[in-house]
């Protein structure tokens, strides 16, 4: 490199010093808005970039890896950060111009790119376009209005909203549309991927100055912290507006913008917070103290990361900071069908539109995920995949029969109904879902336990292939199962151990005779002893859960035939397995017993079965108040004759387990704080009855009411529908 480029380098460095993570969106605050353009001193340099990228392919990775190296380079350079910031203002004018140009190219490429995806192209713009349940839209809208009122009054701390829901339920779209309609400006943090991409992009862009890399990495949490506090203080600098070519204009604009109301939307949490939620909590507390703009957290809850949500947003924190919380449901299938049909017909000019049955299949299989439904639809309509049509149409027919009437009347079209069409058709469905790339749905714990407990049998006559049992084994004869226990176990994504323990907690209520109980309990015991060998535990777990599930199903002698009358036991709430909490508690008790009665140095067994009870009886003078209360606690047993299972232990529809490993390791820790949080969280949960109604996703609120009544009046079938 010659001397002149070296000078340019110096300039670049000054700017790249002030990198903040977030840059993709034009809407951001002053400092960071420079960063993606930092490396571009002049517009005429745009051309060399692409060349240099290809000529130095290994560069970016090398640089990212060597922070130490870059810092040493920094020392050799004469310029420092403060000179840089002084210079920045001077440079800003000319650069803005460049940036402007670049942004436009960037954004234009982006739009042309995004229009390829239907989920982007048909992004809703109006409230009425939203496929989300009206009530939910209303709820969010009300919240925003409330914020607006508060904002106008200019007092009170910042309201915070936690918006949860499955992916693709329209959370973000909803917020964006509503904010747009109510005149809020959105400042968005959308997380880590952007940051990574920016690092990548900017490092690529700077290949020319490979030797003087000055990318300063900041911890994600610091970036997030800065974002929140700055986003609150400063208005966004709208760089994309066509009138803003110069600095003066931008200042003007920001002044105007000062009157605007801003909502801060945080979508993807920096990963670090999942590991260290306390850090996050501190930042949020701080924000609550000094922030003014409403803050919206949008978090997807799925099978995998619900525990993450619980850790990031523990109930006590939410209570303390007056969080509002809105939970979105998956989009109703009827809504989705309407939407898909509309879009398909809009697209039909170019492409032949798929039959309504295909659309229905897609809608049902998407599980309420608009995004994935649209993607699937697009794929299904694509020119290259037209040959799939033939397959699509055939298997979907029986389902149409089932639902065609219901669709029009707005009644139930349910997710998972694919499963109900019987075994023969099921195969077709599998083919179809393979062809269309439909979602492979994981099922929640609640569902999987319910599926096994409320198992169903098919008609024996349909499956003549089953050999008849000899006469002396006749009482073991059962109709074929419609549920595949292994599949349920597989889809539940839980270790067999956990699933078994949840089944165990709940199976008793589903059996009526003591003989059945005896056999089922025996099978559970078998299942557990299968996992006796720790070396083979992993492998045997799948078998052990099979033994437990099939054991229970087979021992249920009430339901040996497909048409056996079901006992009308009403709605049986499912419960959480108590084993884990019990053994945790026991371990804690042992630990505290040992700690409190150190001086006695007895083995824990002796301590708990002999010493402590007699200490309680003989009442020697204990010096430590902790000892006294502990002894009392350890020697009082709850004698309530009722089932000592409160609603605390109810298994909720959306509940998930903590990591298996974590749960186990808790045994040895004293995580009292977490404990408390969990309990509180559980007390705040809806009663399962009200949750049940949420599962019935219908579009009209009047329909919802009807559904609830059905629940109260009808028998089991409705409850069982939950699981199938």
């Amino acid at each position, binding site marked *: 490199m010659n001397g002149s480029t070296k000078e340019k380098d110096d300039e670049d460095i000054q700017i790249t010093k002030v990198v903040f993570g977030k840059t993709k969106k034009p809407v951001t605050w002053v400092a960071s808005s420079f960063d993606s353009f930092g490396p571009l001193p002049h517009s005429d340099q745009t051309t060399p970039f692409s060349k240099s990228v290809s000529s130095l392919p290994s560069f970016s990775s090398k640089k990212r890896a060597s922070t130490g190296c870059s810092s040493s380079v920094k020392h050799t350079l004469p310029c420092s950060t403060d000179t840089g910031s002084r210079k920045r203002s001077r440079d800003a004018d000319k650069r803005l111009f460049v940036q402007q140009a670049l942004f436009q190219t960037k954004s234009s490429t982006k739009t042309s790119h995004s229009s390829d995806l239907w989920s982007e192209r048909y992004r809703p713009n109006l409230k009425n376009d939203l496929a989300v349940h009206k009530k939910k839209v209303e709820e969010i809208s009300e919240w925003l209005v409330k914020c607006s009122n508060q904002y106008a009054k200019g007092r009170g701390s910042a309201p915070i909203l936690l918006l949860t829901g499955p992916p693709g339920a329209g959370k973000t779209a909803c917020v964006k549309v509503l904010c747009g309609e109510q005149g809020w400006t959105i400042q968005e943090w959308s997380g880590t991927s952007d940051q990574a991409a920016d690092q990548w992009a900017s490092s690529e862009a700077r290949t020319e100055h490979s030797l003087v890399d000055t990318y300063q990495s900041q911890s994600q949490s610091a970036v997030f912290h800065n974002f929140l506090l700055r986003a609150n203080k400063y208005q966004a600098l709208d760089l994309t507006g066509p009138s803003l070519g110069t600095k003066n204009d931008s200042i003007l604009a920001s002044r105007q913008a000062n009157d605007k109301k801003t909502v801060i939307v945080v979508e993807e949490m920096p990963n670090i917070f999942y590991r260290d939620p306390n850090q996050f909590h501190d930042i949020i507390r701080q924000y609550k103290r000094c922030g003014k703009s409403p803050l919206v957290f949008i978090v997807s809850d799925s099978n995998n990361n619900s525990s993450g949500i619980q850790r990031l947003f523990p109930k006590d924190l939410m209570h303390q900071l007056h969080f509002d919380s809105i939970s979105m449901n998956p989009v109703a299938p009827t809504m989705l069908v309407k939407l898909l049909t509309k879009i398909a017909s809009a697209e039909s000019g170019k492409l032949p539109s798929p039959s309504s049955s295909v659309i229905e299949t897609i809608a049902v299989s998407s599980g309420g995920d608009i995004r994935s439904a649209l993607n699937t639809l697009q794929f299904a309509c694509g020119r290259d995949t037209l040959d799939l049509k033939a397959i699509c149409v055939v298997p979907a027919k029986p389902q149409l029969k089932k639902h065609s009437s219901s669709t029009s009347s707005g009644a139930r079209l349910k997710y998972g109904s694919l499963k109900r069409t019987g075994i023969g058709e099921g195969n077709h469905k599998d083919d179809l879902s393979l062809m269309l790339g439909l979602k492979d749905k994981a099922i929640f714990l609640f569902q999987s336990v319910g599926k096994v407990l409320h198992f169903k049998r098919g008609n024996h006559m349909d499956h003549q292939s089953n050999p008849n049992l000899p006469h002396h084994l006749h009482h073991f004869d059962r109709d074929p199962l419609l549920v595949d226990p292994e599949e349920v176990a597989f889809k539940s994504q839980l270790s067999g151990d956990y699933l078994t323990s949840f089944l165990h907690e709940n199976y008793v*209520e589903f059996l009526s005779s003591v003989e059945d*109980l*005896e056999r089922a309990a025996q099978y559970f*015991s078998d299942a557990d002893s299968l996992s006796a060998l720790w070396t083979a535990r992993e492998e045997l777990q799948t078998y052990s859960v099979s033994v437990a599930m099939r054991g229970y199903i087979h021992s249920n002698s009430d339901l040996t035939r497909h048409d056996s009358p079901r006992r009308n036991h009403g709605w049986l709430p499912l419960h959480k397995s108590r084993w884990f909490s019990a053994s945790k508690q026991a371990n804690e008790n*042992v630990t505290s017993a040992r700690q409190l009665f150190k001086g006695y140095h007895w083995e824990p067994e002796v301590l708990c079965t002999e010493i402590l009870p007699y200490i309680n009886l003989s009442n020697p003078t204990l010096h430590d108040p902790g000892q006294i209360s502990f002894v009392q606690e*350890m020697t009082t047993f709850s004698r309530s004759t009722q*089932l000592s299972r409160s609603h605390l232990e109810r298994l909720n529809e959306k509940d998930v387990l903590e990591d298996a490993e974590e749960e186990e390791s808790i045994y*040895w820790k004293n995580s009292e704080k977490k404990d408390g949080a969990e309990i509180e969280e559980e007390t705040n949960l809806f009663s399962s009855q009200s949750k049940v109604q949420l599962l019935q996703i219908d579009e009209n609120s009047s329909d919802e009411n009807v559904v609830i009544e059905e629940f109260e009046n009808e028998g089991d079938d409705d409850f069982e529908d939950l699981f199938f």
Partner: protein
Amino acid sequence: MSLWVDKYRPTTLGKLDYHKEQAAHLRKLVEGGDFPHLLVYGPSGAGKKTRIMCTLRELYGPGVEKLRIEQSQFTTPSNKKLEISTISSNYHIEVNPSDVGHNDRVVIQELIKNVAQVNQLDTSTQKNFKVVVLTEVDRLSKEAQHALRRTMEKYMATCRLILCCNSTSKVIPAIRSRCLGLRVAAPSVDEICQILTTVCKKEGLTLPREMAEKVAEKSGRNLRRALLMCEACRVQQYPFNPERDVSEPDWEIYLRETATLIAQQQSPKRLLEVRGRLYELLTHCIPPDVIMKGLLKELLQVCDGQMKAEVVHNAAYYEHRLQQGQKAIYHLEAFVAKFMAIYKRFLEEGIADIF
């Protein structure tokens, strides 16, 4: 203040009250200045640990009685931190490895290594080995026991092990053959009576003979329990009144109530209730095998002869499962369900016979 159990614990082999012959043997064993690894076994409350401490005192002198409690930390290969409390003097260290559950192997290996690798500085005045006392060896996992057997041989030069357990049936044969077995039988009722009387005399109390016998009977020949009971009685009513019942620990009463519940009614609903109680017992740190034993004892009282065999057979079966498996509740409940089924059949047959 300390409990009588601690207060009147004999500290030298000469002061032991019963099994005096065995005490003499122990003294001879130690006199040589060296002894093999020991495996001390016997029922709970028979005085195993007392004997071990007396032996150590004989060996090392009164220095052994200066005990300190320490927390040791170990790290598993999977980087998990384990904490375990140890009781040690300058000459010995006592640890209960089963405190750390399935990670006991790490503790065994690391701890013994740590102790054994340090030689005594002054071998002329002191023994050239230290003693590691491991309690509840029968609760050790198999892996830990195998680890132990290797460690035992490797560090024979600098350390002796004294293993203490209730039953040798859960100790692997390899360990049993490497140790000198020492069985400490439970004291007889007479011996317990005698000890109770002596202790009461030292306390300045008079204990009627009948009372002493009653307590001894009730204690199930468990000296520790007998002493604790006696002390509890003294607190509740003095002078002792042989007419009054000896108070029992709460969990035993609770367990008896549970057994009554099982015998009263056999239905899924009742099983749920019983399960709740079993959980309650488990959270109060009553070991599952103790629960099983207690339940069996109570349930047998409502059984007639023929049924007893079947019930005991099943109890043994599920107790074995209990030891093998992970989740005690499955097996406890399976036993309860089994008993319910058996008992219900028995009742129904009885009714059929009447008509």
